[in-house]
């Protein structure tokens, strides 16, 4: 347990140190890279609640990532052109408001998706969450109002009171703070009564029901919370790229989030962070050399699944321990 905490602390400090060093060295590109790691780690931390703790292999979390992204893009567009959204409600370029809208929208969407998907399990659950995400993906492509297939540009990055978000470093720090909060929420949640029930629902739903706790209500709540965290990351991702497109909603994106977790360590606090770090470094290091870098990623993933079940965190800190 101690050892895992040390590993986690090192990872988080490294994430914080990298952009500071980049700033000192006058290499702002690396700040953007670190921001990308942070946002992907946040998205995967959301998924880690459903997948890691609850054993719910959602292959549709891109839907929530994308909803968050579009919430940021659409609100920013309306704020920019001054046209009301609907019913006279104006857009906004204020990040805190955008985050709340993004999370609320994803939560509202996750509720019916969760209710329906949780009637199934195993491979069927994977397929039905994928199907829902694909529906939303095609909807986004065919709906011209917000760019359709071409996506939607955010001309000026959204604002945060008192902080200049246009500079890479302050924006990184915003993302980093949100990741830190999300990790705190994840660890509290995991250790709480809710987390105990959720982890028991993963291990043995029959046993959980036999002590009087209905597994599906617990799973549904986890699914919704998980979607909301991933949506928050989506909103940040749009602001990082100043662009949102249906690719954020694609099944590849859903797969990428799962890959991050498997690489880093399923159900582990810093698993998504470790996975995202590895993924982005890989993409950066090999993406320049060959466009087939994902092939190498695939090989690494295969090795992790076959030889290192606990991912990076499992390798560095050993097996997970439950009190």
């Amino acid at each position, binding site marked *: 347990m101690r050892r895992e905490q040390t590993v986690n602390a090192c990872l988080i400090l490294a994430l914080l140190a990298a952009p500071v060093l980049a700033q000192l060295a006058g290499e702002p590109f690396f700040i953007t890279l670190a921001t990308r790691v942070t946002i992907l780690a946040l998205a995967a931390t959301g998924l880690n609640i459903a997948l890691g703790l609850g054993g719910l292999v959602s292959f549709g979390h891109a839907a929530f990532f994308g909803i968050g992204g579009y919430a940021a893009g659409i609100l920013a567009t309306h704020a920019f052109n001054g046209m009301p959204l609907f019913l006279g409600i104006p857009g906004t370029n204020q990040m805190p408001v955008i985050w709340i809208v993004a999370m609320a929208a994803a939560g509202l969407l996750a509720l019916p998706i969760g209710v329906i998907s949780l009637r199934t399990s195993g491979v069927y659950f994977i397929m039905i969450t994928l199907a829902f995400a694909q529906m939303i993906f095609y909807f986004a492509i065919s709906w011209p109002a917000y760019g359709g297939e071409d996506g939607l540009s955010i001309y000026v990055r959204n604002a945060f009171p008192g902080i200049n978000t246009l500079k890479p470093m302050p924006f990184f720090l915003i993302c980093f703070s949100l990741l830190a909060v999300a990790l705190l929420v994840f660890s*509290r*949640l995991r*250790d*709480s*009564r*809710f*987390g*105990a*029930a959720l*982890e*028991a629902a993963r*291990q*043995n739903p*029959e*046993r*959980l*029901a*036999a*002590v*009087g*706790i*209905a*597994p599906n209500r*617990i799973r549904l*709540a986890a699914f919704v919370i998980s979607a909301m965290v991933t949506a928050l990351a989506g909103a940040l991702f749009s602001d990082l790229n100043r662009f949102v497109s249906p690719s954020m909603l694609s099944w590849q994106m859903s797969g990428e989030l799962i890959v991050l977790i498997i690489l880093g360590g399923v159900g582990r606090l810093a698993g998504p962070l470790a996975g995202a770090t590895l993924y982005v470094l890989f993409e950066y290091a090999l993406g320049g050399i060959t466009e087939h870098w994902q092939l190498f990623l695939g090989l690494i993933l295969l090795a992790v699944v076959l030889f290192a079940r606990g991912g990076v965190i499992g390798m560095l800190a050993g097996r*997970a321990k*439950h*009190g």
Partner: protein
Amino acid sequence: MAEPVLEIRNLSKSFGALKAAVGVNFDLMPGEIHALIGPNGAGKTTLIHQIAGTLTPDEGEIRFLGKDVRSLSVAERARMGLGRTFQVSSLAQEFSALRNVMLAVQARQGTSFRFFRPVMSDPSLTEPAMAALQRVGLQDRADVPAAELSHGERRRLEIAIALALEARVFLLDEPMAGMGPDGSRELTAFLDELRHQAPILLVEHDMDAVFALADRVSVLVYGRVIASGPAAEIRRHPAVREAYLGEGA
């Protein structure tokens, strides 16, 4: 006369052509141990599943504490006080013994929608759980993951979980299975005490234990109750000896 705690009327259940319960009547009075015996495949576990709610009967009535529970889910019935153990241990494998029991304590206390307080530093969960482990003699194994417990320890952990539920009735599916003679003797003494806490429906193949403990015995064969009555009577019942005890004498 007192009201039965558990009352089963005319229960029938088939799996295709296979009849696992045919017009079964069964009841459990306060303070008693009512054993259910019968050959392999008679339908004993199926009956427990129907009482607990994991299987739905085709026909018949199940009343628990005077209430018809057929429309209630497994979890709702458990919250009413149905504490069961599984014939094949069913535990949260990665959790320690203590955490398995804490789950029951947590369920007993009400909502699990509490998101912030860590369970391991909550004495209102750990203390009752530890007390339940102590009662089955597992206190020294509290931190061991369920998957690493021995077979006998897992059986006892199942009972500790039912204890922590503060069950109003215990449904025990072959608690002695694979316990060894010492284990069986210990458990027999334990169950003898337990009946004062809540009545027990005991499914068991160990006849020494059954006749040492049971106030009443019902015999199930191919889904039918072929005999039911005080233990001493059942022991002498010719049809029982033939059908189940398998003795010529």
